[in-house]
């Protein structure tokens, strides 16, 4: 149950800087998710908070105390690893009570803590089994139980669901969400590369990219108001379409003429100075709708079509060789559209504009 504060935190391996300028405030009771493509340093950042990696520069505070040089066990953190990291030679009970035994807690205290955790996670029947006699999901629950028993200030999760199969992943994700709800005061930091996990679990998401923080915000903030092309394309699946164009009308609303022939209006204020500015227009596949009118954003031939029943994903033929295809998600079944030319438009409130990869909203 604690606040975390990272100030100018940096990590370098020799000459190579993998993380820099990390500034982050995490309040008690939050579930913050670090998300980013592989190699962005999200696990490294978590391991720095845990104390398993040294912080090269900057300051990490837990509850107002600088913990840079404090060993992991005294930071008041508990960590759940991707590979579970259960002690294979100990029973579930011994796995969960190991930390308390090391801390020389009394037997009754240990039993109470283990039983409480076992109740929360429904591990009662498995307490005397060895980890190898458990399924993947059960093992991960034991790993979580091992954290709960210690009653830490901060829970750290390092891709805890990555080793589970798809069905179990969803079930365990919901269990973690419930667990968080049952412990509203606990602070949790969760690392994942899966944006669905990030969107569903997080109270705030930290998007990491290129060795720094790209954007911090609630899941819907990131979805609705991404600050740049990277976050725009990283959050949401399939990724946001980006189309090159130029500003032809300014004011409270902005009109953009696209290189591909279409045009669109966005609810983004601009000034006269922006006239003629080269921009990339972003529109999410789910925000595109078919239109018959002349005021269309994009027109193209449907090359490929995925009918999922509830919706149909349309893949348009790229305008030029090598360009990414435009995608649209239409509600309902539209199998008749294959090979046809379709015009698309989007609501002005759903359109994003980027100049030099930065959103015009965040200039």
């Amino acid at each position, binding site marked *: 149950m604690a606040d975390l504060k990272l100030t100018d935190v940096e990590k370098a391996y020799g000459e190579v800087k993998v993380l820099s300028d990390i500034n982050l405030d995490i309040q008690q009771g939050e579930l913050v998710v670090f998300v980013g493509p592989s190699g962005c340093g999200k696990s490294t950042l978590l391991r720095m908070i*845990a104390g398993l990696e040294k912080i090269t520069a900057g300051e990490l505070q837990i509850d107002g105390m600088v913990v840079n040089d404090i060993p992991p066990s005294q930071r008041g953190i508990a*960590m759940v*690893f*991707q590979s579970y*990291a259960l002690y294979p030679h100990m029973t579930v009970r011994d796995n969960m009570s190991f*930390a308390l035994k*090391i801390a020389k807690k009394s037997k009754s205290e240990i039993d109470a803590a283990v039983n409480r955790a076992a109740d929360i996670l429904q591990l009662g029947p498995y307490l005397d089994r060895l980890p190898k006699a458990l399924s993947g999901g059960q093992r991960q629950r034991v790993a979580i139980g091992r954290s709960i028993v210690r009653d830490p200030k901060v829970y750290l999760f390092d891709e805890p669901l990555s080793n589970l199969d798809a069905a179990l992943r969803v079930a365990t994700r919901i269990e973690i969400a419930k667990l968080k709800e049952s412990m509203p005061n606990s602070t949790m930091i969760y690392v994942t590369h899966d944006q669905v996990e990030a969107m569903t679990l997080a109270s705030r998401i930290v998007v990491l990219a290129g060795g720094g923080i790209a954007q911090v915000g609630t899941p819907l903030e990131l979805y609705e108001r991404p600050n740049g092309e990277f976050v725009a394309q990283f959050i949401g699946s399939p990724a946001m379409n980006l189309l090159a164009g130029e500003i032809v009308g300014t004011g409270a609303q902005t009109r953009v003429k696209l290189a591909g022939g279409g045009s669109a209006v966005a609810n983004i204020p601009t000034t006269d100075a922006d006239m003629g500015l080269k921009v990339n227009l972003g529109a999410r596949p789910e925000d595109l709708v078919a239109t018959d009118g002349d005021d269309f954003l994009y027109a193209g031939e449907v090359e490929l079509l995925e009918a999922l029943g509830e919706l149909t994903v349309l893949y348009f033929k790229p305008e030029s060789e090598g360009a990414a295809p435009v995608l649209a998600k239409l509600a309902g079944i539209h199998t008749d559209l294959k090979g046809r030319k379709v015009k698309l438009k989007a609501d002005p409130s759903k359109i994003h504009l980027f100049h030099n990869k930065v959103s015009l909203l965040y200039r």
Partner: protein
Amino acid sequence: MSPVFQGMLTIIIGVGGCVGYFYFSNMLLDKVIFPAKGPNTGRNINRANQVRPWLFLFPAMFALGLYLAYPVVGSFWRSLFDRSGANFIGLGNYIDLFSEGTFRTAVINNLLWVLFVPAMATFLGLLVAQLTDRLSWGNIAKSLIFMPMAISFVGASLIWKFVYSANPDIGIINSIRDAMGLAVLDPLQVRFWNNFFLMFILVWIQTGFAMVILSAALRGIPEETIEAAIIDGANPFQVFFKIKVPQIMGTIVVVWTTITILVLKVFDIVYTMTGGNFGTHILPSYMMTYMFRDDGRATAVAFVIMLLVLPVMIWNIRQARNEMR
């Protein structure tokens, strides 16, 4: 004929003979005995496939039978006869053995060897493996400690004969004693403790073996379990004894029993260093004193050794099998 040429010829005949045996016997089976044609093609192929494993196993089984199984039976039979080999005396050799003082000393000494050498070599091997794990010069240290493994027991004994030499100009122990003003003594004549001076030579040789195997086992421990233990607040000693050692317990047992079996067979060190004098006999060296003089007695000792090794061997093989699973 020059010996080099002779050796080469032997190798060529040996290897060529092996390859030839497998090739031609297989051909004989497929083409002549059960040919894959004619009215019984299917049945012939099945039969050939049933016979083939035995065909290929035959040379190994024959060699093992000739050089392992037959000698065991033959030795036991010989141990029931007297020195000349002409008169059957039943268990007479065994009864004589147990009434002899030197044999009892050898058994007790052997027991000390079996307890001390594997324990010490495994312990030191584990210690070195753990301490050199993260060192930048760890591999050099490990190579140095492994080096004695490459020296024959007799060679090692000769080296240690210099170390234990009673001449302070040669032996390091006496050189130190001399420098400290103590009287020169021959370590190998110090009763009881001289056994441990001999055992130490084998520990010196075997530590490298234990270290290599245990070092690999330590590397195989998942890093996350160690990190989890560190987060759980375990200090380095607790990480080592409560997390690392239990996870490699199977390997430790295999190393331990392997060295135990070796200990029960080593005679070179005692033979070279003291010849079994000053109360340092162990069973294999004791056996050697009777060999060629009283083969009945010597084979009886050999049989006692085999009976002692057998349970450790079975345990060792079981453990090794469990490890593989």
